[in-house]
């Protein structure tokens, strides 16, 4: 496992983003910090009504980014 799997960096659209894994109770939320001026983003995994899992932004409105970055986070954990 990465020595700090709660704070790490990823490449997203040719730029570095900082990822913080946070907990609220035992819910897990990933906070994304962009190097450019884009607003920080919080994403989490949610459950579709058909029981499949998907990434979503918290609050709503940035679903595409949530899905794209969520996939990168999954790959990061699979590599470790």
């Amino acid at each position, binding site marked *: 496992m990465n020595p700090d799997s709660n704070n790490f960096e990823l490449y997203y659209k040719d730029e570095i983003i900082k990822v913080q894994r*946070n*907990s*609220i109770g*035992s819910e897990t939320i990933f906070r994304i910090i962009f190097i450019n001026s884009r607003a920080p983003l919080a994403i989490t995994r949610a*459950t*579709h009504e*058909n029981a499949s899992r998907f990434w979503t932004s918290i609050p709503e409105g940035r679903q595409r980014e949530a899905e794209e970055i969520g996939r990168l*986070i999954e790959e990061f954990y699979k590599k*470790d």
Partner: protein
Amino acid sequence: MCYYNGQKVTHAEFIRLKQLEKMVAQYDFLARDLQIGFDYSLNAVLKRQPDEEDFDIVQMEWGFIPHYLRTRDEVAKMRNGYKDASGNYRPPIITLNAVCEEILAPGKIYREAALKRRCLVLSTGFFEWRHIYPVNKRTGLPLKTANRYPYYITLKDKGYFYMAGIWQPWTDKATGEYVETFAVVTTKANPLMLQVHNSKKRMPTILNEDLAYEWLFGDIDEKRILEIAASQYPASEMKACTIAKDFREALEPAKEFQYEDLPALELNV
């Protein structure tokens, strides 16, 4: 059905996500980093507003710091153990949990907090280890070293619940750092938790909504504090599932994982 970010979700999931929104907003307002962790991490806690029947959701550090510790160095020594000036080893003192039978004992570090600073620790579930002693095939006797299996315990039909907590403000005398810390109150294990947490036979004091209200806002005497602290959430309203042994490093720590060699829990409790 409802929609969240264009995705079809159940009512329960919609409410869960909306609650997360509120909490994320609170944390952004607090402008503090959040760290996941199972020891000494920051957790969401409901803290009463002074003299009002209202509360704030704040982050507190899990691991009650007694008032007599002056610096973070002293805190680290307490938590990790150390050798004193004579070279004698002083073992760690763990203050993550406060045993309900002792919270009001005179001279104990928790007494003032139990009387004046009770709080509710917000949780969606918690982790405990079950110990199974394999049998020696030659002698038929149990081995001395247990196999440990982690469980994730939740409440049926409740996305969130409250654990009884007590909190303590603390300031580092060297740096001026101010932090609020807490301990989760524990009680005797109910029939389900007796099987899961079978080494210590304890469980967090989980409060239903009425008891949570009374714990946070009630003008209650010592007898009632102890009664609530010792209350057991019904086993029939809880569920426990096994999870992966490396759950601390997993993307989804609470994801169910089956062990073929593990005897099933007795669920008719």
